[in-house]
């Protein structure tokens, strides 16, 4: 059976990169004793995938992982319990649902993600108080330089990918396009803001920095899990 789990990645776990985390998951699943399915072939591996890999340094309360069990009708509460029992501090499975019928993999389904970008006091003063911020977001297009897979630097308009942009205290709340067709990383947005306002911040310092927290991932504008649940119920 196929299952989608939603989990959080907080605290120390934010320093664990995607590839290390993938190896970590394999070990978590082995320790948990859940009957995870393996691929065929000489070098079988566990069948699971992560919806939208998270960069190092970003915490999240809405990560998704699709996995396959070699049995049907496995009790999902039990699965959550088993996995949580062996998860390192900072990873918590929040929910699990069965994926019934033909489902788009989490990776292909995700379209957007919401983030809270928390600016240090000093940086907030420079950025959030800047008059330019309003004109920044009101631009029709926001062009940034981005390296493509071949290493060539191209111009790239991120404005269509900024779906939500709100200021709450010292933080920015944004919804950004995420996925294979359009993918905007929050750092890219921050870079564009700094550039526009005229702040140079190549390396964080003790006073100038920001924290990124991913709140959730969405297919269209619904959380990934909500949509899945809808399908299951319907």
């Amino acid at each position, binding site marked *: 059976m196929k299952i989608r789990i939603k989990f959080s990645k907080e605290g120390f776990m934010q320093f664990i990169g995607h590839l290390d*985390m993938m190896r970590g998951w394999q070990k978590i699943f082995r320790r948990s004793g859940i009957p995870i399915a393996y691929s065929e072939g000489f070098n079988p591996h566990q069948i699971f995938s992560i919806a939208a890999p998270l960069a190092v340094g970003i915490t999240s309360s809405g990560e998704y992982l699709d996995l396959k069990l070699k049995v049907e009708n496995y009790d999902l509460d039990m699965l959550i319990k088993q996995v949580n029992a062996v998860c390192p501090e900072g990873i918590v499975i929040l929910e699990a649902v069965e994926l019934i019928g033909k489902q788009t993999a989490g990776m292909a389904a995700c379209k957007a993600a919401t983030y809270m970008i928390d600016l240090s006091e000093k940086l907030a003063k420079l950025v959030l108080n800047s008059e330019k911020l309003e004109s920044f977001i009101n631009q029709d297009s926001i062009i940034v330089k981005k390296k493509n897979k071949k290493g060539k630097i191209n111009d790239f308009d991120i404005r269509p990918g900024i779906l939500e942009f709100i200021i709450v205290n010292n933080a920015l709340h944004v919804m950004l396009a995420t996925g294979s067709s359009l993918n905007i990383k929050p750092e890219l947005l921050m870079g564009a803001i700094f550039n526009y306002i005229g702040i140079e911040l190549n390396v*964080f310092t003790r006073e100038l920095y920001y924290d990124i927290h991913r709140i959730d991932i969405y297919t269209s504008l619904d959380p990934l899990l909500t949509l899945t649940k809808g399908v299951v119920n319907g």
Partner: protein
Amino acid sequence: MVYDKVHRIVDIYICVTGFILGGIILKQLRVPKHLLLTTQKPAQYIGNEVNAVMKDLSSVDIRFALCFPDLYEIGMSHLGLSILYNLLNSRKDTFCERVFSPMKDMEAVLINENIPLFALESQSDIIDFDFLGFTVQYEMSYTNILNILKLSGIEIRSSNRKDSDPIVCAGGPCVYNPEPIAAFIDFFYIGEGEASLNEVMELYKELKNDPLIADNKLKDVFLEKLLDVEGIYVPKYYDVTYKKDETIHEMIPLHEHAKKSIAKQIVVDLDKMPYAKNPIVPYLQPVHDRIVLELFRGCARGCRFCQAGFIYRPVREKSLETLEAQATHLINTTGHEEVSLISLSSSDYSHLSPLCDYLIDDIAKEQKLNLSLPSLRIDSFSLDLMNKVQDIRKSSLTFAPEAGSQRMRNVINKGITEEDILNGSKEAFVGGWNRVKLYFMLGLPGETDEDILAISTLSDDIVKQYFSIPKPERPRGSVQLIVSTSFFIPKPFTPFQWVKQDTYEEFMSKQKMLNGAINKKRIKYNSHNAKLSMLEGVMARGDRRIADVIELAFHNGASFDAWSEHFVFEIWETAFNKLDIDPKFYASRQREFDEVLPWDFIDIGIKKSFLEKEYLKSMKEIVTPNCMEECMACGATCFEGGICFEDKN
């Protein structure tokens, strides 16, 4: 200011709790998050891995910072570290934490930000610990030890330290000759930690809790009391005098309790010994990301160049039942999918076949499991086994003939014949392997040009074995042979402890000769850094005077010397010159049997006369039977256990 769409209250809620949560945890990071994120691989500085131990600092008497003086990914692959970590943390009164060498970028952050080096688990400064203990696995990590001390804010020389500084101790194979680093270490532990490290901790706790001992006297009292503990060497209670010819005249104990000879401590019954029960599972991929199952300690073979083969005598095995139980537990507690069977020559383990059957048939049936079997002799049994557990297309086979000619293999007592090698490689080819790695040494005692060229001939003969197999039976793809040579480094406590190491020039001309002789069409040749091998030779057989060289080289920028990309020989050369110390005196000088060697005061349980006899036999190319066939009465019976008391075939 709301620019776009309605925002989700729920999201804010989740988000805020997330941050409070994160905030509490992150407060403990010694290097603030945003500085940490400027470094490569920040995960190595945070601890918090699965099975990492966390204790309440106020509930323990002893805080022990256990250090592997190299990168996290190297240290975390080391079984010894894991054993000590588990051993110390199994004590209620002790909290043992890990320390590794920070990478250069992190080192810069620490220095720029004025942050002292810290231990991973509690993220607290090393200087606040009771102990800083180093496990010293290779000589070229000596400058890293000094760097750890410096980054921690601890004086490099023991004699300059404050009473409140942690007590600095060291163990591991290198400390069987502790003298080159004696000036930096308060006490050495000679032997296996499981044997009596607990006794050392008990003593410390007793003194620390003694109201009559003032805090600023604790270290001194403790070090003095250690003189009565077996296996402990406290360098400050000894002085060394030298003769006119610069060799050692005498080692003089300066305290009535300072022993003339320090006896190695070992565990006789490995089944009763605590093992690394809950090894930490790192996130960052260590060099070896797997469970390590230790089959036995010691080695029965007696290769004359191999220090491990002598210092770890006698051979002591774990029983099959113990290993089965330990394997099962380790698989469950770590989630690793690979088990590696290690020991100095795994093929000699009495129950290898049933153990592998258990792992393959019982465990691997339930869940996928890879077995890795380093240090196996290549024969039909092991090939068969590897065939079952490894993906042949990806793996290569490793032979370590060590020398090219039979004559030379007799000199070093490597009990493997040309026939063994050729048959083994042929069977490997038939079995489907086409990549074979061969390891040799250059500069072995008494080596001639013919011996060197024999390496190339033997390699050619192996290639010929491949082509002697009818085409349809050969593995697909062409044969690939990789020949690697290292330079011989005479080590203390081996029969070669007296011999002259080749000079740099000799090494290079030998390497050149071999390089010219090897047929490059099918064979790839790798060689070592001769300067590094020479320096290692100096460190391995150095005495107390070498400390100055290490310290000066360190001050001039030497660190990570074991890493070719960081090793700068010129720094060392300058240090030797400046201090007027001739490296050749240590590396390239033949010693007489009656010379006092710097490590003579360490008693590994093997008689010096035995090593002497072995050396003389080697010069006559006479081989010595291994401990499984016949006992040569080396002296290891003093430990009253192990192979010495088993029936010989």
